[in-house]
């Protein structure tokens, strides 16, 4: 406060002195002006209110009169006619007053917006009948633009066509409001108004005005649009633009040349509209012009142009579009060019930005990736390459899990099959491949334990389809055995071939060895029976893994094989309850496993050969397999055969001779079959494969291969074991009918039969059968030379499948388990090993065996039912 007071006192002498009288006078003046302003506002307000009230009142009075005029009809009563005439007189009097005329015009303008139909046309007529349009004409002469505009609007809304001549003069009025109102009136009052408008319009036509004009034209009844191409040459750019839009709206496609020419117009709007018309009318001739003008166009025009090229263009436009994509700097134009390319040729340009790099999808790789063990791929590659010199290295590879081996081996086989399918050169099946495939056979037989009408399907896809099932079953079995098996067996000792044969040839384990062979043969038989002969494979029917007799994880006993301990295959336990309910079977199996457990594992080999007893053949096969020394040998059938045969003989001498020295009984000879017969039958397979190849049917050859391998023992052997003497006599007749060389051996065994009748008849049948077979052999000898050419090439193919099936030979049995059978030794045919066996003899044997296999397959359901029925 002190500061303010000080400031006031300081500035007080500087303030000018004001005369109080003057101040008073100014106050009076401004107060008077305020009062005048309020009075004027009040007066004008009252006047407006009074006027509105008068108009409203007059409208109420004139409304019924207008209604009467609008809906008057001649067929009314005389009184109504009198009233109508009276109304005419009254309204004539009212029209003398300008106010009433204005009110009438307002009424008519309001009503024309709310009514339609016939009443609306009557209203237009009434407007002219009352002479109100003359007032509008007078207004057109006014110097005030708003009056003129109001008059034009009134004449236009009330559809006074007579005003057309007066209004069209205002089209090029300098006042925009009048000009626009006149343009609308000209277009709407008469159909030819649009022509006049386009011909004479000098001023710019706004976008909004064009829309309104187009809307007016659309609402014209019975409007016949002129050919708007006539105005494409107008000097007014807006007229040209409006004409282009009208051309597009009315689809007047008779101006293609003008449209193409307008693409070169310097106005972007005209360019765009012309291009749109070209696209709308599919003017292919314009493509060259479009490409020519493209580079000088603005981005907005380029976008439309590219869209049109995409719509009209074909593949020959793609180079242009790619050039645009490369040269154009504008992002939107480049994107449009790519879009146009994809429109013309879909999926030509693929997304590239933000795309992460991934390798191409490989199903086999996916299979391998899903397998936890890392060495499966390496093993598979070595197997495929299969150089003979690397055989030992392969054997020393780190053992794989069951799944890995199955996948890897089936992949290899599937590859071979694919090669055969494509008609390519057949692969040479080397020793390692044979070994591996025999392992595959063992492994896959683990997959197909129970057979109903199931066929093999070794394709990789099918393996993958059932992989989860396999995994589940494997885990389930492992888990069950881990829990229930009190006595564990380490099979790692069975890796060495020498150790295995020591164990096999040991008299202490001779029964187990025989059992192994029988077990293998029974399995092989069952699997061969279940395999479909020629109809292909049944992909969806892969047998579960639950028949496996021995699967368990070891608790680690041998520290020298630490690496294998981690693999469950090397640590197998046996649960007899799980394996088989038969106590005898369980005891036998356990003895075998105990023997295996004691075997030396210094030279461990693939576990696949060892962890299951019945894979002995595969091991032996690997040992004595003939080795192709060179590529020429592999490619030469004769040389290859000789080498193989020689190798077989050498191996047989080394392996079988000591064995034969220790064996005397006929049944014991069956064990000898395991090694030499594999290669003997390998030769037979070659013969069978050659037959199959002549038919050019790989599955047929494979089936014959199976048949040869699985029928080492007469099929009557099994029947004779369970039937009585009378049945045996009947079966002997059947042997004569369908028998073959194999059955000759079986007939020899019957010489020791208990029944004298059987012994006699067996000798007689044997003589007759031998004569019959000799005659067949002579007949087929002639054909053998022709088929021998195909023998070697098919050999590789056949080994793939043959080795799969050569290891197991089973026959089904009881109600609970098809494999629950009484395992007995079959008659051996080891003495039949003859490395000089001719091709003719092989073919004869193969043919007869194939027939027997077919019979056996056909009779298998009956046999199975017999077994099930006890």
């Amino acid at each position, binding site marked *: 406060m002190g500061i303010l007071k000080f400031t006031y006192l300081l500035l007080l002498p500087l303030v000018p002195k004001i005369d109080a009288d003057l101040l008073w006078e100014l106050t009076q003046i401004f107060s008077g002006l305020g009062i005048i302003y309020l009075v004027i506002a009040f007066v004008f307000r009252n006047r407006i209110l009074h006027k509105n009230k008068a108009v*409203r009142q007059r*409208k*109420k009075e004139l*409304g*019924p009169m*207008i*209604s*009467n005029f*609008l*809906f008057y009809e001649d067929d009314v009563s005389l009184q109504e006619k009198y009233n109508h005439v009276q109304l005419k007189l009254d309204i004539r009097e009212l029209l003398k007053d300008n106010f009433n005329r204005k009110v009438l015009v307002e*009424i008519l303008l*309001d*009503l024309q*917006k*709310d*009514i*339609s*139909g*016939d*009443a*609306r046309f009557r209203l237009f007529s009434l407007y002219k009948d009352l002479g109100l349009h003359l007032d509008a004409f007078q207004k057109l002469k006014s110097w005030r633009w708003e009056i003129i505009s109001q008059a034009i609007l009134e004449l236009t809304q009330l559809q006074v066509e007579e005003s057309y001549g007066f209004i069209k003069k205002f089209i090029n009025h300098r006042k925009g409001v009048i000009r626009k109102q006149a343009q609308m009136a000209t277009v709407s009052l008469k159909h030819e108004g649009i022509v006049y408008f386009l011909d004479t319009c000098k001023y710019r036509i706004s976008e909004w005005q064009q829309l309104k004009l187009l809307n007016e034209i659309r609402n014209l009844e019975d409007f016949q649009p002129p050919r708007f191409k006539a105005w494409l040459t107008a000097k007014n750019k807006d007229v040209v633009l409006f004409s282009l839009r009208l051309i597009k709206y009315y689809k007047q496609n008779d101006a293609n040349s003008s449209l193409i020419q307008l693409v070169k117009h310097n106005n972007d709007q005209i360019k765009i509209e012309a291009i749109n018309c070209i696209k709308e009318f599919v003017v292919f001739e314009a493509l060259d012009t479009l490409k020519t003008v493209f580079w000088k166009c603005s981005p907005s025009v380029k976008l439309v142009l590219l869209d049109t090229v995409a719509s009209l263009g074909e593949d020959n436009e793609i180079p242009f579009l790619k050039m645009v994509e490369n040269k154009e700097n504008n992002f939107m134009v480049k994107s449009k060019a790519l879009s146009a390319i994809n429109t013309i040729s879909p999926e030509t340009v693929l997304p590239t930005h933000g795309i992460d790099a991934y390798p191409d999808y490989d199903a086999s790789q996916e299979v391998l990736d899903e397998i936890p063990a890392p060495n499966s791929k390496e093993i598979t590659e070595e197997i495929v390459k299969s150089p003979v010199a690397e055989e030992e290295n392969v054997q020393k590879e780190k053992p794989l899990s069951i799944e890995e081996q199955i996948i890897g081996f089936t992949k290899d086989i599937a590859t071979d099959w694919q090669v055969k399918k494509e008609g390519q050169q057949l692969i040479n099946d080397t020793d390692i491949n044979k070994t591996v495939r025999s392992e595959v056979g063992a492994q896959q037989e683990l997959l197909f334990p129970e057979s109903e009408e199931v066929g093999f399907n070794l394709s990789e896809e099918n393996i993958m389809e059932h992989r989860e099932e396999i995994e589940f079953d494997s885990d389930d079995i492992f888990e069950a055995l881990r829990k229930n098996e009190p006595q564990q067996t380490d099979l790692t000792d069975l890796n060495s071939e020498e150790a295995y044969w020591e164990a096999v040839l040991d008299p202490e384990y001779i029964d187990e060895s025989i059992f192994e062979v029988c077990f293998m043969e029974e399995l092989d038989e069952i699997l061969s029976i279940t395999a479909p002969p020629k109809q292909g494979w049944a992909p969806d029917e892969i047998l579960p893994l639950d028949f496996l007799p021995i699967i368990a994880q070891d608790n680690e006993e041998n520290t020298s094989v630490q690496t294998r301990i981690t693999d469950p295959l090397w640590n197998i336990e046996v649960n007899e309850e799980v394996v088989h309910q038969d106590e005898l079977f369980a005891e036998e199996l356990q003895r075998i496993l105990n023997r295996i457990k004691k075997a030396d594992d210094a030279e461990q080999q693939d576990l696949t050969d060892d962890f299951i007893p019945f894979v002995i053949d595969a091991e032996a096969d690997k040992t004595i397999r003939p080795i192709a020394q060179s590529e020429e040998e592999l490619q030469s059938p004769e040389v290859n055969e000789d080498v193989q045969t020689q190798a077989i003989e050498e191996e047989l001498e080394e392996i079988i001779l000591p064995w034969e020295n220790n064996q005397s009984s006929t049944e014991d000879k069956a064990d000898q079959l395991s090694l030499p017969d594999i290669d003997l039958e390998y030769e037979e397979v070659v013969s069978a494969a050659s037959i199959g190849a002549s038919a050019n049917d790989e599955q047929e050859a494979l089936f014959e291969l199976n048949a040869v391998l699985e029928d080492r023992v007469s099929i009557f052997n099994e029947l004779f074991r369970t039937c009585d003497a009378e049945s045996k006599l009947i079966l002997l007749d059947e042997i004569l009918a369908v028998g073959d060389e194999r059955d000759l051996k079986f007939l020899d065994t019957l010489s020791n039969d208990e029944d004298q009748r059987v012994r006699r008849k067996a000798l007689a049948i044997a003589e007759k059968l031998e004569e019959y077979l000799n005659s067949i052999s002579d007949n087929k000898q002639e054909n053998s030379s022709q088929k021998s050419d195909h023998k070697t090439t098919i050999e590789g193919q056949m080994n793939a499948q043959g080795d799969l099936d050569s290891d197991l030979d089973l026959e089904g049995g009881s109600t609970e388990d098809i494999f629950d059978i009484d395992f007995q030794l079959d008659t051996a045919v080891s003495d039949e090993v003859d490395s000089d066996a001719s091709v003719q003899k092989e073919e004869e044997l193969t043919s007869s065996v194939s027939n027997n296999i077919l019979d056996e397959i056909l009779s298998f359901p009956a046999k199975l039912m017999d077994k099930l029925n006890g």
Partner: protein
Amino acid sequence: MILEKKHLLLAEDDELLASLLNYRLEKGGYKVHLAYDGREVKEFLKEHTPDIIVSDIMMPYFSGIEIVDHVRNELNLQIPVIIISSAGNEENVLNAFEMGANDFISKPVSPSELLVRVGRELAKM
């Protein structure tokens, strides 16, 4: 034989249009009662029950939809109701139909067409 005229309640806030329609409907043989807003409609309905109601949707105080709701749900009258709506006012028309309106006619109104629609609705009764 003199037939009793049907009573028609016309609710329209535009006096000119109301007058025009009134003239046309009376000429068509109906006894028309004019109401210029929704309040007048309700006042009229308290004391009278017309044979048919022709109502504009957009009216002061109470809209045509509210009139329909009032007639159907409060008065529980099953008399025909024709709605006059502006062009493009489809949503209000659908609402009116949901409330129980029998028919509608859009502006600009053809008086002759309205007369036909009124006669048809009354014929349904």
